[in-house]
């Protein structure tokens, strides 16, 4: 029995000292293994006097149970300590930069064009396109500007070497294309995005090439009040809710009445700043009711049908949104510029 007590004391001391898996294993072999001390004690039972055997056997088995339990407990403690040490060793400087996937970005004009498509899609306007290289007939004549008409001076035109063929100065020729294609006798609701060209010196504020998005709605019951509704809706969607809109009388030969639409300056809220030239208003698009002559040229009876049209510049919208001050960045393809958006 004294042996039992001694083995127990030694084993418990040894277990407490075993700090890693190897020491634990050695301890297990020493005490609980097939040639371990506890089994040695049990094997020694037949050598004991008969009256001691039962109680010794009981005590030895109890010791085996106790040591086994203690071992399991110690093993867990050691394993946890090991895991903790391992984890501690894996600590990182979390401020080091992460491994970034290489993703591309959309051109800021593309982003604005998509916004425009989405906003108008909800109102039932679909995208319709027409060519960049256009005839004088579609770009001017059918839009109520016969040759020599003074309003042609409003658009500085690139002429091609083929007589009667020009670079379109606006997306408005698409109105005629759309009416002739989708009509007659059917309502139309389309937007006409595309690249336009102007014979203009390239400066921070004007480009020889730029996007335009034209809108056209034709129906038996389309009014100028509807035009106002559509533009207000668009302005609120693209520039943020609560925009104030004003119409200014203007002139385009292909609309009558014609207006310019202004919103209160999105930068100063109408108080006046350098961007709105201290007027408090930003011009966002030209618009008007489709001129009867244009309706007729598109195949619609102006006595029965009416419609509105508008035109806006996505680059201008993008400049306002991002505070871009020089339009020349758009087609310069400098990735240091392009990577800033989206």
């Amino acid at each position, binding site marked *: 029995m004294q042996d039992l007590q001694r083995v127990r004391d030694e084993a418990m001391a040894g277990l407490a000292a075993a700090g890693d898996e190897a020491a634990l294993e050695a301890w297990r072999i020493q005490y609980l293994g097939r040639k371990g001390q506890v089994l040695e004690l049990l094997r020694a039972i037949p050598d004991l006097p008969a009256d001691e055997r039962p109680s010794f056997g009981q005590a030895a088995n109890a010791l085996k149970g106790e040591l086994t339990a203690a071992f399991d407990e110690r093993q867990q403690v050691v394993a946890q300590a090991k895991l903790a040490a391992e984890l501690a060793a894996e600590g990182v400087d979390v401020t080091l930069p992460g491994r970034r996937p290489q993703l*591309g970005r959309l051109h800021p004009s593309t982003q604005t064009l998509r916004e425009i498509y989405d906003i108008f899609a909800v109102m039932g306007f679909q995208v319709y396109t027409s060519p960049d290289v256009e005839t004088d007939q579609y770009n001017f004549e059918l839009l109520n500007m016969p040759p020599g008409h003074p309003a042609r001076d409003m658009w500085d035109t*690139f002429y091609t070497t083929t007589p009667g*063929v020009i670079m379109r100065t606006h997306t408005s020729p698409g109105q005629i294309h759309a009416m002739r294609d989708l009509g007659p006798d059917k309502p139309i609701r389309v937007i006409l995005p595309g690249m336009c060209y102007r014979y203009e010196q390239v400066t921070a504020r004007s480009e020889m090439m730029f996007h335009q998005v034209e809108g056209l709605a034709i129906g038996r019951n389309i*009014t*100028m009040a*509807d035009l106002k509704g559509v533009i207000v*809706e668009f302005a609120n969607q693209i520039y943020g809710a609560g925009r104030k809109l004003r119409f200014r009388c203007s002139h385009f030969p292909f609309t009558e009445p014609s207006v310019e639409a202004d919103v209160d300056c999105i930068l100063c809220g109408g108080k006046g700043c350098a961007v709105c030239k201290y007027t408090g208003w930003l011009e966002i698009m030209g618009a008007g009711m489709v001129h009867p002559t244009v309706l007729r040229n598109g195949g619609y009876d102006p006595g029965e049908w009416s419609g509105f049209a508008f035109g806006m510049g996505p680059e201008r919208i993008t400049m306002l949104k991002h505070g871009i001050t020089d339009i020349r960045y758009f*087609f310069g393809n400098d990735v240091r510029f392009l990577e800033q958006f989206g």
Partner: protein
Amino acid sequence: MTVIRVPLSWLNDFVDIHDLDPIELAERLTLAGLEVEHIRWVGLNPSPRYHVPPERMDEADGLPWEQDKIFVGEIIRTERHPDADRLLLATVEYGGPKPMTIITGAPNLRPGDTMIKIAFAVIGARLVDPYADSYKTMVLKAGKIRGIQSEGMACSEKELGISEEHEGIILLPVNAPVGMSLADYMGDAVLEMDLTPNLARNLNILGVAREVAALYDRPLKRSQVELASLAGIVHPEEMPRPQGPAAPFTRIVIEDPDLCPRYTATLIRDVEIGPSPGWVQDRLRKAGVRPISNIVDATNYVMLEWGQPTHAFDYDLLVERARQALAESDDSSGRSLRSTPEGLTEPVLPTIIMRRARPGEKMTTLDGVERQLTTDMLMITDTLGPIAVGGVMGGLETEVNEHTRNVLLEAAAFDYINNRRTSQALRLPSEATARFSKGISPEMTVPAGQRCARMMADLAAGTVVEGIEDCYPLPQPSVQVEITPAEVRRILGMDVPAAQMRDILQRLEFTVEDVESATAPQGAETAPLRVTVPWFRLDVSIPADLIEEIVRVIGYDTLPTTLMDDALPPQWRNWALEGREQVRDLLMGAGLQDSISYALIGPEMNRKLLAAQGEPVYDALASRAPADALLPLILDPATLVRLENPLTPATDRLRSTLLGSMLNALAANLRTVGRVALFEIGKVYWPLPGELLPAEPEHVAIALAGPREAGAWLNRNDTLMDFFDLKGVVEELLERLGLLGDVRFEPAIHPLFGPKAAQALLKGRPIGVLGEVHPAVRRAFDLPDQRAAVAELRLAPLAAAASARQKMRPLSSFPAIKEDLALLVDESVTAEQVEQAIRQGGGSLLRQVTLFDVYRGKQVPAGKKSLAYALTFQADDKTLKDADVEKVRRRIVARLGQTVGAELRA
């Protein structure tokens, strides 16, 4: 768009605006369609609504004169500065507690001067710095010159921002009230308006005044007799017809009335040419016109005021020319002198003839340039030849000059389209053309001509000869338009009562009559109105024009905001657009930056693209359907769509491939960043034989250059992107569109590329190319001496795939078996052929073939290469046994042996 400058002091001659805030006025005009771009303050103080802070006001904004710092002053004493010969000390009364002493060097003051009214600024006043190189304001500071303190300043026009004049100080009229703030005394503001081409009638003070009168419902002041005589006249037919002169002074012949419907002439005798009085010069300057001489100034003044350009000829020179022409014709007819029966010499009268120029005719315009004329230009001529380009510019020879005594004043009407063309053809934009080319009523000629003649006589001490020579072969028709309240409602979506319509139109000087109609009794709210357009409005001819007049006067702010309740048109899926944007998203997902470049290029672009080989790739598209053209299509620059009027030689034609601009973008970016991955979806322009317009297919371009991974501490991969990086992007794009299975790549021979180049064929039709740029081309584009890979693909076949639905393949729940297969093949055998053989041999159980190694070198005989594949086998209905796989494997090996001569590597 045409800019006019309207001084408010001048506008006030015709409509009372003294009580209106200029900013409010500008806004009202702007909303009504007369856009006031800018207000220039010439002394007048802006209302608190003006937002530009004083220190930010520039030359265009002008200079308000501070009420408490700049006054009407009076010099009561002038003496020499005791210590400076050229300086004067002046004592000035200005309404302050005691007179102030100033030091001045003004050349228009002398010692002893007294009772001289001046513009006086006290210390602290903001003035224009007269010595600055460019416009700059300054605050007047106290200064001491040789011991004497100057307490203020006698201002020049320049210092007050009136003009550039800085020779002397402003001398005010003797009755100017001392102590009044100068702004109240003579402050003015100028509205700078940019008017649309339909507003020809408003390109003048009177025109703007009519507008203000209508908008504010105020009467037009008709103090000028010429204007008073027109009160209430609307129909052109009612306009007074002028009396001819008692004795004719010229004959007028209009040979081409279509280009010159009316010509009038007035004679002003005994003028003395000299400068105009100060008030005329001041108004002209404020309106942006340089004063020249009283006669020229009068024509400009009336043009600015009434909108009618006129022209002054030296009458005696015309008479002289007529005499000369007569002499020449007499010479040729053999007679010596033409005499009356009494033997007296008949007075020779000039004859003014309006006709198209004759072939080869020339004339020197008053700017001294000899002009070559063409037969579609309208000329003012006399019996000797051209004396003016009608409505564009006068001739040098008959111009008024310092010796002129008698002036023949022309006031005429010209066809606006022809006038615009002539001015453009001669590159002669003039103030006259800016007005004539937008259309001016022929009825304007008489009253404006009268006004001008009277002014010339007043300014130059001459007399107007009674009566006007008037030739008017093509009278202006009267225009009437009918309009109903229902039509106004149909277009505007707002009810405008007939009474309000009538009121607005009458304010705009239209006459309005009720019309009987079948549906509504005369005078009812729904009855149509018959509207007569006033003679000075050439821009109104249809009901829509009247609707605009009505709504712009009511104000667009009253227009309701409604949502369309018209029928929704049929909606459709726009697959072309959706497909394009899907391609864009896929390329963006592949790590590429979306870009847009100029479609305009110069001739050197295609030459650079062909740097490796001088010949254009395809000279014309005639032989080939555009849909099958091999890309990139590099045409002879001469065959591209070309601009007649390019801005620069480098942007004078349209690109036929995206790759030129792509390579430019690559080169520009590689100067600032190390790695560039770009794409563009844009149009190319292919001239089509026999077609007016080019084809404009959309293409996709891709460009890669620089290291495979952006340099970073974790994953440095400095290997340069190459052909296979590019091909990977293209394959991924095709795969995601469900097209890869139908696409084959074959070697491409194209001068843009080196040997690493491929053409992609979709079901046998070429859809694009990809490759590494030829070193010679890289040099031509100034690219760094390193790999660059570019591709150009047709968008249409890619976008078309967007609507195709990819069918799901069932997922097998049985285990897959993987096996490797290493093969030895001849160098000439392609990976495509090997994979095809493997797939053919593998049948339906072979699910995946992945090439994982290509090896040449030791253990591989020369002329051979080793390809190693990982094969995945799987069945949908059972677990494959080794024997099953072995059977398939044997079939694959047999197939490889038969078709590509492949041997298994041990």
